[in-house]
């Protein structure tokens, strides 16, 4: 069953082509990653798939439905965590979750959500006083409020310390175990390798490679590497001559 599919997506901003004929298929129950450097078009792509942006060309289907005809239903069934969103500083964790939960016709209770993301001890703290990792966990909790079938995550662990990243990965793994589908973007190769069943490597708005991380590494990365076990970073370098992150 198809979770998300898009065909020949195009999005232009003036002269810049952010998304250049991009096609993807994500199956239900899998965790799919869009891996690429900053400016590759990952956020634009995922926002089109989330129904927040209209493409200039191309078709999008989510859970077998289109945005044009089924927006209300889709919004009830999806969970979204956007890049760089700052939730209201002066609401508590609890109040924020309750607000998001109110939008959905069914979903988990606020207590369940707090337990899921391990923020029970912070339920009465103001959002503005949380650490970066706690804020991200809250954002994911908000995305889970409606017990979604599909999660869209845009760079879910950027800027987090290693422990917070691992906590979030475990949370996402549990979501998958319960049958959820995940589409995420990242520029961290270890995240793509650890979390994703399949990965599409994106550069300049196009998919330049697609497949399971191990297969991609075997096919494109490992032969080039002498000093360490091949990684998706190596795959990217092999394909483009550049690194995923400008260090």
């Amino acid at each position, binding site marked *: 069953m198809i979770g998300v599919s898009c065909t020949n997506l195009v999005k232009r901003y003036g002269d810049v082509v952010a998304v250049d004929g991009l096609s993807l298929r994500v199956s239900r129950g899998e965790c799919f990653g869009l891996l690429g450097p900053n400016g590759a078009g990952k956020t634009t792509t995922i926002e089109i798939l*989330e*129904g*927040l*942006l209209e493409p200039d060309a191309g078709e999008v289907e989510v859970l077998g439905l289109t945005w044009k005809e089924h927006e*209300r*239903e889709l*919004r*009830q069934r*999806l969970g*979204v965590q*956007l890049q*760089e*969103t*700052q*939730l*209201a500083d*002066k*609401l508590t964790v609890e*109040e924020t979750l*309750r*607000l*998001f*939960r*109110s*939008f*959905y*016709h*069914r*979903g*988990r*209770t*606020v207590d369940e959500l707090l337990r899921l993301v391990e923020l029970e001890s912070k339920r009465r703290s*103001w959002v503005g006083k949380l650490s970066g990792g706690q804020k991200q966990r809250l954002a994911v909790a*908000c995305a889970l*409020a*409606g017990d979604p079938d599909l999660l869209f995550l845009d760079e879910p662990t950027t800027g987090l310390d290693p422990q917070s990243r691992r906590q979030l990965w475990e949370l996402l793994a549990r979501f998958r175990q319960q049958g959820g589908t995940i589409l995420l973007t990242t520029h961290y190769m270890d995240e793509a390798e650890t979390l994703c069943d399949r990965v599409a490597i994106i550069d300049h708005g196009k998919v330049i490679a697609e497949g399971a991380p191990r297969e991609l590494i075997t096919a494109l990365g490992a032969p080039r590497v002498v000093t360490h076990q091949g990684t998706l970073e190596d795959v990217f370098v092999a394909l483009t001559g550049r690194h995923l992150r400008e260090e």
Partner: protein
Amino acid sequence: MTNESIDRGGAWPPLIELAIARLREFMREPEALFWAFVFPILMSVALALAFPGGGSKPAIVGIEAGPRSAAIRDALAHAPGVTVRDIRAGNEARALREGEVHLLIVPTDPPTYRFDAARDESRVARLLVDDALKRAAGRSDPWSAREEPVQIAGSRYVDWLIPGIVGLNIMGSSMWGIGFSIVQSRMRKLLKRLIASPMRKREYLLAQIGGRLVFLAPEAGVPLLFGAFVLGMPIHGSLVSMSVVCLVGALAFGGIGLLLASRARTFEAISGLMNLTMVPMWVGSGVFFSSSNFPQAMQPVIQALPLTALINALRNVVLEGATLAAVARELAVLAAWGIGGFVVALRIFRWR
């Protein structure tokens, strides 16, 4: 979807949750509370001190030095409503300009009056002084009218002023409170996050106005009560009438606030828009001085302004006990601004 029962996990419907969230944010912002409550009281106190209005103020005159100035001073010594003030030589023109004296008497024979006829106090001073000096010179009047002094409660400047300040407060707190918080949410990308959820756009906008209304009662009530109990302003309107007028006013400025905040991306932009909108009304809507001072050609525009409508309605209701039917025109103007603002805002609102 309508057949499924909706389980919100213990939360209220979204419109209410959004309004409650907005209310909580507002209450947790100390500056906002100051501007909403303390500021109007400070304004009222300051203005009451500047314009005490307990009885009429005397006409203040200065007498230039000259051979007859002593005689003139004596003649005015017992004139009712006239006070002679000493001015240093050479300072006369400045004193006239600054309003320290309303009239200057040059002690020629007959005397010469120097004053600006455009100033009411100066014209009154001229009449009182002329009357006193002519009487002292022996004029006799054919008859003296009888006088029956009438004290009308609510006719002081400060009585007229307080409803204006309440209107100003409703405008300011509605517009700033809504405008800034929306622009901030837009800048934080919170609006984008919200529309990625099933939240309905119109409910978000309605909740911005609704969340503010809870504070309307104290925001309007506190200055009115302060005016009544501390400054002696009479309140002739019914509670229902006053509440309805304030409510419609708050809704009007809520709608306008939504409209102004519908696309602004920075605090500079929203501040500029707010000032552009509010300053003309501060000046033209009859807050501090009557709007009828402006030329006839501008009156239709002035009367169409929402603050003018609100203040006129408030003055009529509070000071004269007008019914809601009597201020129906003003309420209609306010309703049009509120609904129009909301409808247009919903259409052009920038969520991303």
